[in-house]
């Protein structure tokens, strides 16, 4: 019995952050009725999937992840109903890890209790930074002191699996500011931490400002130093650096996110959610109304649906595999292991600090992760032509 993860995309935000490129809508643009109906449409969507593929219901549900957007803008009672529906729809004892992405300002004492009651057992909190001037620049609705309260409230409500999301390479951010954010985050004793270099995605206001010269990217050398310093700091603080951007206390890796890097099956529900079942990939339409209407009419709109061929699967295995601390193994894919090994041998003098390679596996080290795109492109040249 293969297992399954569920991802629910909640495209609601009080305010859209100018750097975010996920599908989302600001709350004031959405009628209250639509918002209230959201979880039940998600349930209907799942029913449609189960009707089309009854064998899906045979799966063991391992994880549920509510991402967005800002899922913490939903009513906990509605989410509670959804979670219990999802838990009952599949075989087994129900998902072990049920994560909610939450903004600090939404984590009041009462709401934290309600999220617990809704069945959520893991919180991923969008902290971003502890410097108020940067929070302001990022147009976040919380300030640094709110973060401390949010974590305290979550702990008080009984959450024992909390992840904090941080960002570095923010416009004009100094190394000191970055390290200070890390120190304050670590001081909250989270079980898990992620940090991401700010990316100027196309079609975002930040990207536009970058093009127009209103924003300047942090110098590449400084970005590299920030990344390595962050890795070093968290390692010393006792975290395992188990993926390019993710750190965990022993036993607290994100089971849901690991599904992406180990390419486990994930069924996505909600507008803009991506699904990955075996070699098939598709996404729900990035449009709340069409998604809702289609599901209401008993239809599943699968966008960009494609079955992946062996060559494409190899490409995915390579770049997801190299994100993991375990790297790629010979057992998993002899072709990839051979290609990576050939690359390593050819560049041995220059890349000894970047990667480790032996008969069984090939993995990148922190310095290698920092330039992993370049390495992946290089290794791909060693793949046999498809």
């Amino acid at each position, binding site marked *: 019995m293969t297992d399954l993860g569920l991802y629910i995309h909640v495209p609601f935000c009080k305010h859209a952050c100018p750097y975010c490129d996920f599908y989302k809508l600001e709350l004031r643009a959405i009628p209250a009725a639509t918002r209230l109906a959201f979880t039940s449409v998600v349930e209907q969507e799942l029913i449609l999937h189960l009707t089309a593929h009854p064998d899906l219901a045979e799966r063991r549900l391992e994880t549920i992840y509510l991402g967005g957007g800002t899922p913490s803008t939903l009513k906990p009672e509605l989410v509670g109903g959804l979670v219990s529906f999802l838990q009952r729809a599949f075989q087994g004892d129900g998902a072990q890890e049920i994560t909610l992405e939450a903004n600090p300002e939404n984590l009041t004492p009462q709401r934290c209790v309600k999220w617990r009651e809704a069945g959520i057992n893991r919180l991923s909190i969008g902290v971003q930074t502890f410097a108020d001037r940067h929070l302001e620049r990022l147009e976040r609705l919380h300030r640094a002191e709110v973060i401390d309260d949010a974590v305290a409230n979550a702990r008080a409500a009984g959450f024992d699996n909390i992840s904090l999301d941080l960002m570095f390479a923010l416009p004009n951010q100094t190394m000191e500011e970055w390290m200070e954010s890390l120190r304050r985050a670590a001081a909250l004793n989270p079980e898990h931490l992620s940090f991401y270099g700010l990316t100027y995605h196309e079609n975002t206001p930040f990207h536009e400002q970058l093009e127009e010269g209103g924003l300047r990217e942090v110098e590449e050398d400084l970005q590299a130093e920030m990344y390595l310093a962050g890795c070093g700091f968290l390692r010393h603080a006792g975290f395992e650096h188990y993926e390019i951007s993710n750190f965990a206390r022993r036993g607290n890796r994100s089971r849901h996110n690991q599904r992406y890097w180990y390419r486990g099956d994930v069924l996505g529900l909600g507008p803009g959610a991506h699904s990955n079942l075996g070699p098939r990939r598709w996404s729900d339409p990035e449009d709340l109304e069409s998604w809702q209407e289609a599901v209401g009419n008993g239809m599943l709109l699968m966008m960009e649906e494609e079955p992946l061929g062996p060559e494409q699967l190899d490409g995915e295995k390579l770049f997801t595999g190299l994100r993991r601390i375990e790297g790629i193994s010979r057992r998993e894919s002899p072709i990839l292991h051979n290609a990576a090994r050939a690359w390593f041998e050819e*560049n041995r003098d220059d890349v000894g600090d970047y990667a480790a390679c032996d008969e069984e596996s090939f993995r990148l080290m922190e310095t290698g992760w920092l330039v992993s795109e370049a390495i992946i492109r290089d290794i791909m040249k060693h793949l046999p032509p498809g």
Partner: protein
Amino acid sequence: MTDPRIRNFCIIAHIDHGKSTLADRLLEITGTITKRELKEQILDSMDLERERGITIKAQAVRMFHEKDGQIYQLNLIDTPGHVDFTYEVSRSLAACEGAILVVDSTQGVEAQTLANVYLALENDLEIVPVINKIDLPAADIDEARRQITEAVGINGDTALPVSAKSGIGCKELLNALVDRIPPPKIDNDAPLRALIFDSAYDNYRGVVCYVRVKDGKLKVGDKIRFMKGELDFEVTELGVLSPRQSPVSELQCGEVGYVVAGIRTLAEVRVGDTITHAKKPAAQALSGYKEVKPVVFAGLYPVNADDYDSLKDSIEKLRLNDAAFFVEPETSEALGFGFRCGFLGLLHMEIIQERLEREYNQDLLFTAPSVVYRVLLTNRETVIIDNPSKMPNPQNIESIEEPYVDARIFFPKEYLGNVLTLCQGKKGLQKDMTFISTERVMVHYEFPLSEIVSDFHDRLKSVTSGYASFDYEVTGYKEGDMVKMDVLVNGDPVDALSIIVHRSDSASKGRVLCKKLKEIIPRQMFVVPIQAALGGKIIARETVSAVRKDVTAKCYGGDISRKRKLLEKQKEGKKRMKQFGRVEIPQEAFMSVLRLTDD
């Protein structure tokens, strides 16, 4: 004796002065072609020709015009309109007795106008000047007359004002052609001599030769001989263009038409050659024949080595249509198996490049074009070098000669300073400077061809805001103090980046080249030194620093598909890169040696 019913003429003009429009109008007015057909014809013509506003392949069209109750056969012979095809132009002119000279009344005389007039005068053509676009508000007919008189040296008062677009004056022009252009001299009984002024390849019939019968006459079934090519064929079809091919049983003395004789490749037919009868050959071929020699050479390589055979195939197909395109196999240490290609000029090279990419769908890598050097060795032997990487060792070289050109540049006087500075920087030697009107200047310079082959034309356009016109012809060779500059990437010499430079420029060109390559060569996992060297001596150096950060921060659900598609796209993009050792060198790098001026 002459044939009073026939007039053979061509149209000469600067680009955009209205040559094609005038030709179209004459075809329309004489009823040779209807308006609707005209449109179709325009749609049919090669994309490249239309986009560049030039004519690549010459044709000859027969039309009829009635004047004073008499019907005349007018043969319009089209000429290629660009400097690279001067020889072809001269052969087309040699097939005529007269030429219409078109001058745009809003622009005046330009460089090509003059170059073409000189060619026409060399061929003893009667020139009928025409002032075009007289219906435009900016038209200045008197000024155009004055420039024709002063700059061209033809009486401007004899020029006919026309508007090719609306047809004004075109009937008068047809009458003037009959009156002023002499009819062809004929001798139907003399041994056959027909001038080949163009040829084309037809998939079904093989080579089609366009000819002007100068002496005797030509019939279907005749056994003919190409006097220079020394090959015999049997005529299977004769015809005229009206403008579609329509077969006739014979071509009379003085006429223009086409010949099909089972000729399989264009290489067997040389423009300028004379056709005579195999049984009763003429004693002498017509004069003016020249072997067309490419003046610019470049290496042409498939981006993926696996595509070599398919590229070879495409090149062979293309050559069927272009005898002036010279090709031989070449091997480069850096680029592998490819071809050394010779072209009549830079435009010719660009046309070939575009046709291979567009029509034959090839991923190409061109090395920087080179001129042909004559190298005298210490053992008194002379070798011809068209590839810088083949330059002999300096200790074996006695002297090097490089080709020179005569160039004429026309431009508004306010750009005089800019143009002179540019010419000076390109090692130009001024031979003449004239004001052709109160506003416009013509300068006459001598340059090393290598300076023109690089970015001269682009620079000229930019320093004159596009107002300059420019024409040149290769005149001969001169000795120069030249050296081969090698480029080392990551310590290894890349033969395809070698260039020949004047010793006095080597230091600055080496510096600029290294700097450019630093910008073009993508950062690698390691530091990549780029060096320029003369002999073994390093004269310039730059370093491409190693990649510091190149990582995708987040990789969850949808990121994975996006990421994979991006990687696939980058893999496609790689096709334009050439792996050299451990370093990838993009195509641009090989062309960057063209533009080595400090800006």
